[in-house]
């Protein structure tokens, strides 16, 4: 191997190790955020639906009493 080949191999291995270091936490962050945001959206939708249900129930009761 020539000197430049040793240099090139060193830099190539550095890139591989950096990607191995950076990629898993980056993907994990994306996954966790997506999961949590999906849960948050689901919970909000459920809360909104529950609120609407209670509102329509009270409207129905008001209508029935009048």
């Amino acid at each position, binding site marked *: 191997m020539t*000197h430049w080949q040793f*240099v090139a191999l*060193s830099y190539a291995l550095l890139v591989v190790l*950096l990607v*191995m*270091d950076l990629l898993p936490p980056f993907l994990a962050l994306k996954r966790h955020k997506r999961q*949590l*945001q999906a849960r948050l959206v689901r919970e909000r939708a459920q809360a909104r639906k529950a609120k609407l249900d209670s509102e*329509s129930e009270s409207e129905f009761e008001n209508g029935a009493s009048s």
Partner: protein
Amino acid sequence: MRGSFWLALVLTAIGLYGGLVLAPMDYLQGETFRIIYIHVPAAVSSMSIFVFMAVQGAAALIWRIKICEIFVVCAAPIGAMFTAVTLVTGMLWGKPTWGTYWIWDARLTSELVLLFLYLGVIALYQSYSDLRAGARAASVLALIGVINVPIIHYSVHWWSTLHQGETITLTDSKMHASMLWPLLLMFVASKLYFLGSLLLRARVTLIKQESGKAWVRQALAIELPTAVIKPTPSSAIT
């Protein structure tokens, strides 16, 4: 976090251009000396990260600060990566310079021990089901293992080693300025990379550990798209 990554990238690009293109060839080592632009910053980072872990570990054990525990466990994989880079690039530098990839020299062996210590910290943390207990155990190992750092640093003085002594100290440098400035840029870039990677890992760990807490949900709610976060008028639904 992103800022430190971008700054590290810019500094690395400038440093590599200076080291690989502008710096002259070394009259003894030839072109292989250019490996030092990754080997030396990685070696310094491998030791400084372990010291950082020991300091954070001490703070975590004494004051029970949760973020310090997280920093200990998040810094370990980054330190292991830097140590692996140090060992691999050192081997690739050693072959054309010394005629061998590996020798059981005090500096090389103590650096290999450092890699095992990093792996030990990671394995110890992973072996606990209680994450906080695992982080405290990892902190204890970081505190014990930090004794290896001065051994690595002074190994070239204490023993007759194949590895040369320091070329650069805080007050003096034996390198020519044309070779030195890219190395200094690479030092700064490696520190910024560590900072960015540490914050990224800490963020992942915090979200994982604290996902049920209100502040995480609040922080994520801010990041939600406005179309989702905006309350829909009840008339539009009905």
